[in-house]
């Protein structure tokens, strides 16, 4: 093949490759989770209520925010995700047993969200709790993964 013909073949095949790459880029961009779904900051903050409404050593469900507000016996607050860390089932609070029990694979978590029964691999996720003017607010925009419960995770009034 002559030099010119080979050059043209290479150039056209190269252009074909560029076209395919562009196409792939478009596809990937279409499949990426839409960023527009990010909720407004004000929207993501759930106002749970005044501090005194929650008894020490109690668990209150907030279905809209998809979390439980836990008030520990010492008065500290934790916002615990209701999603099991094993496969994502919704864990109900079983008051009689004083723990969260997953209906799907029988994982269990204590009031801090710590695993007491496998197969769940880590503690329930947390949401950030803020207390402003003695009102509890939970920011549901960011869910924080954690291995286990630590005292630093607790918010106090």
């Amino acid at each position, binding site marked *: 093949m002559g030099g010119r013909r080979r050059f043209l073949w290479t150039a056209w095949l190269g252009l074909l490759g560029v076209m395919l790459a562009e196409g792939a880029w478009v596809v990937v961009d279409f*499949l*990426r*989770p*839409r960023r527009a*779904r990010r909720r407004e900051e004000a929207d993501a903050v759930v106002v749970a209520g005044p501090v005194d409404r929650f008894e020490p050593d109690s668990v209150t469900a907030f*279905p809209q925010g*998809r979390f439980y507000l836990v008030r520990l016996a010492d008065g500290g607050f934790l916002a615990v995700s*209701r*999603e099991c860390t*094993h*496969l*994502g*089932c*919704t*864990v*109900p609070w079983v008051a009689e047993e004083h723990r969260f029990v*997953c*209906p*799907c*694979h*029988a994982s269990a978590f204590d009031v801090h969200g710590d695993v007491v029964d*496998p*197969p769940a*691999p880590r503690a329930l996720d947390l949401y950030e709790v803020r207390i402003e003017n003695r009102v509890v607010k939970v920011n549901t925009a960011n*869910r924080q993964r954690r291995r286990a419960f630590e005292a630093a995770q607790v918010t106090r009034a």
Partner: protein
Amino acid sequence: MTRTDPANPASQVTPGLLQRVWRSIVRGPIRPRSDRDRKWIVFNSFVLHFRPVRLPEKTLRYTHTFGLGGMSLVLVLLLIATGALMMFGYEPSPQGAYASVVGLERDVLFGRLVRSVHHWSANFLIAVVVLHLLRTYFTGAHHPPRQFNWVLGLGLLLCVLASNFTGYLLPWDQLSYWAVTISTGMIGYVPLAGEWLQRVVRGGPEIGGATLITFYTLHTTIVPVTIVLLMGFHFWRVRKAQGVVVPRAPGEPVEESPHKVLGLPYLLLRELVVGLILLAFVMVFAALVAAPLGEAANPGMSPNPAKAPWYFLGIQELLLHFHPVFAVVLLPLCALLALLLIPYVRYDEDTSGIWFVSRRGRRLARWAAGLAAVLTPLWIVLDEFVIDFGGWLSGVPAALSEGVVPVAILGGVLAGLYLAARRRIGATRNEAIQAAFVFLFVAFAALTATGVWFRGPGMALVWPWGS
């Protein structure tokens, strides 16, 4: 028919318009009067030219192929037809999906029947393609020149699974919502990219509108188009390999020029009969057993037990016994890789066309199946009540104690059995690999059966009869 007499140009008659149009579409005879006509019809019809003009008579025997490939095609066509009908009424949004399915069943004439036919065809399709894979494997149809067609078949199997799984979510009832939650939850265990991959599949952090529209699009366009294209490729490779593998008895040499018969009528009539019987069966079954539809999806309440679709329950069962990375990622990937490599192993002999390789191969396969059928349930029960690698080896990481250790033990058992078959019994590589294949397949089937029938609330072992 108009004929021209070359000696007498005056005898030329121009056919009428209708006849000319007709003959522009169908260029040959409609009703064949001779074998020549029959060949012409098959050869010149767009649809029929997918079928062979002539084929070895021996391959016609029903128990050679059981018509499983053709049955898959019939089911795919049925799924496309019923699926297209349902698309007219379905609304892919979390608010509207369930109501539109209920409306389809309640208000549309034959709505429930069409949905049931779609549902059952999809489930039968999985069973039929798996049986087709088994038939192909056990008649040695993965030897050259059919190696790559085995790979294409695996691609089709994956597409069928993808199609089933994406369709599973669409009714948006409790069953589908939680099955897909659990199945996509498994994706999260993929090392490094797991969370990102899960977000892409779900279209966001949790299952919702974005998931539904993604699954709907995959289910109604991308996957079916891929299946149809791959099927064309698959059939074409069968034609290029001179049809399906020609059966022979153990020890019999490959026949150079087997006796052939015409595709029309011998093959096409048989295919028509199998297709019609299958169609009638699916219709009757769907009329008697309606496709299930539970309560509307409730993200706040997981049912107990919550299970993945039945074809993924084998993997969900693995999850109860192994570290998640092993159960969800490594073991399935190894299985897929092994399946892909089956046609490319260097075998001792070409056993294409012989059921189960040889007489000894058949005996070994039976032993392997029996052993797996006993060992798998035994191991499941022991693991539930006795074995506790995580507890015994509490000092080491879980990936080691619940992943590497049990996998190494099981791999050791399998390797030991393979070597025993090779050294003690003197099995050929074909026979020993077939035995390993049978062992693993039966073990997986037993895991799936356990997940379907023997797992109750909290995924505890239960006895399905009695209580």
